């Protein structure tokens, strides 16, 4: 799947991807793709396989099965090195290096090093170039790590929990910096996060994982539009027949009050109050209901998966 100029439309494309640690599959039979230029959130509970997936894309983890392409080239191919920046969760830096030496590391090891970008990111945080990394706060260290990641001028930036250990102010600042730089350089960003709020405000694409499999993938707007929140009064046990016709992701009854998260097929009949759910409601609904069928929009589906997934909003 390449466009006319030879560049792939897909920043990340996984087919049947799996990674096994001992007997446990961290990621299993995962087929999904992320279009170039997206800011994609990677969400899911602990142990869902987010870090493993990022690690495989960042060449730190070797897949057990399946294939993983980055911009159309297999991830193991050497030229891909310059295309990807990967910021792991603990943002490792050499603690005895100064900020300046850390940026020099980027310059020495990256042929496309953009010194101006890296220095702008560091300077806008009012960081001294002579400060030792070990003496910086968590937020300042994240800033330096981001400067290193953007200075590489990657086409794909992988971030594993970039905001996890930051206070709200620093997280807001780093998040803004991230989006501004990504927009300016046209970088595709894939970031994992526990915080739904981060994903809701920053991302236009989403991949939700649970138990090493994809539960939701695609544009945030399309995913949201594919679901409705149904509430009403229901007297008998179980899901009412007129709701059960649709794909019910999750349903709950508190007394006579019935609530369901539904992927409608056509119009919902009956006396139901229908509302558009928020991202958090949709995500939590899927996480709480492991049996609900996954939903991948047309943009996120690989060709091999396209035939199996015939329902959903994109249809």
């Amino acid at each position: 799947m390449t466009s006319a100029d030879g560049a792939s439309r897909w920043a990340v494309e996984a087919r049947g991807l799996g990674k096994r640690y001992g007997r446990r599959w961290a990621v299993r039979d995962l087929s999904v793709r992320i279009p170039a230029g997206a800011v994609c959130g990677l969400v899911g509970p602990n142990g869902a396989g987010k870090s493993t997936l990022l690690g495989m894309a960042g060449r730190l983890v070797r897949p057990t099965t399946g294939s993983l392409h980055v911009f159309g080239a297999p991830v193991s191919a050497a030229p891909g090195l310059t295309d990807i920046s990967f910021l792991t969760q603990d943002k490792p830096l050499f603690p005895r290096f100064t900020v300046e030496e850390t940026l020099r590391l980027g310059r020495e090891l990256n042929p496309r090093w953009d010194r101006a970008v890296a220095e702008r990111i560091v300077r806008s945080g009012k960081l001294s170039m002579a400060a030792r990394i070990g003496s910086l706060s968590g937020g300042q260290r994240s800033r330096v790590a981001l400067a290193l990641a953007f200075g590489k001028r990657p086409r794909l930036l992988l971030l594993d929990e970039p905001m996890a250990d930051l206070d709200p102010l620093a997280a807001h600042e780093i998040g803004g910096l991230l989006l501004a730089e990504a927009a300016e350089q046209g970088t595709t960003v894939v970031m994992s996060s526990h915080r739904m709020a981060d994903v809701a405000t920053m991302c236009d694409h989403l991949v939700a994982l649970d138990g090493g499999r994809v539960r939701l993938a695609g544009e945030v707007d399309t995913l949201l539009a594919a679901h409705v929140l149904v509430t009403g009064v229901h007297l008998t046990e179980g899901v009412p027949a007129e709701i059960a016709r649709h794909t019910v992701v999750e349903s709950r009854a508190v007394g006579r009050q019935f609530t369901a998260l539904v992927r409608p097929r056509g119009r919902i009949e009956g006396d139901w109050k229908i509302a558009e759910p928020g991202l958090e409601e949709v995500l939590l609904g899927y996480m709480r209901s492991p049996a609900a069928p996954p939903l991948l929009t047309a943009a996120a589906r690989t060709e091999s998966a396209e035939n199996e997934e015939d329902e959903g909003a994109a249809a």
Partner: protein
Amino acid sequence: MSTVAQTSVAAKGGDGEEGKKPPRILRGLPWLVWRQHRVAYVACLLLTAAGCVQMLWQRGSTNDFLDRARTTAGVELYDVFQQTYAEPFQNATWMMSMVPVVAGVFLGAPLIAGDREHGTVQLVTTQSVTRGRWLAVKLGMAVLITIVCSAALSAAFTSWWEPAHELVNAGDWNADNIFGNTGPVPVALALLHLAVGAALGLFVRRTLTVMGLALGFSFVWDIVLSGWFRAGFPEPRVLVNPVEQGQPKLPEGAVRHDNWTVDAHGGLHGFGTCFNERTPADCRAKGIVAERLEYFGYDQMPGMQWTYAALVLAAAVALLALTLWWGRRRPL
């Protein structure tokens, strides 16, 4: 011509503003590896320099002593030498025997384990360099430092010991403290210990544990493994005397390997078979006709050392290659 020069300066991207900073001598991975390990490397180089200066100074003093002693007849050279130089030589051999330990524990062990423990292996391998190249530069620079330091120290010690080789350690150059600390042997041993320390870092993530294991290896090496590498290859020379002439005399500079007694049929018997007999005739009565001495000549020493060093070096190179291959093949 001048325009070309100007554009190339401009293309370097504002290097001009770094006017007061030190020049960029090392580039790329070598710069990173040097910067990361520079404290250890500089310490090694300084200690080496200090050790060399000390030993070369001692060498001058020892040579003066030997010159004077040899021209002065009637001096019991050996005793005076022991009084004055036994201790400095003992200290120096102890220091030399620490060279492989330092290479293994302080250079080799933290090399890969340290980056894995602190996660910086992820930082480096997510830049635009492959893991294989990074490991190659890391191992290469550590090997270079190890060779420079161990070769310089060995050269200084050997040049100090050589003129006095018949006196130091009672002339026994085949003992570990001389054989293992002179000529090419320290270089090979240091490289082997370095390789072991680095390789351990592939499997154990905690630096301190790897340092402990590397230290453990140096004990195991001294007690068990070094014997395996030395067993077998040297052929001792032989002197045989009729029993009437007593024990053959050990040639100058040689090291005794073994003593035997020989019967009329050429069969070898233990040294003790004819030890308590007073006269050769008593020995003859027991069937012993000759005394046999096996020894290593001083001129055999270089051959033995180079053979041993080559074996150790081959093991070190194999281990380094294995480390590189393993580290390239799979993420650390």
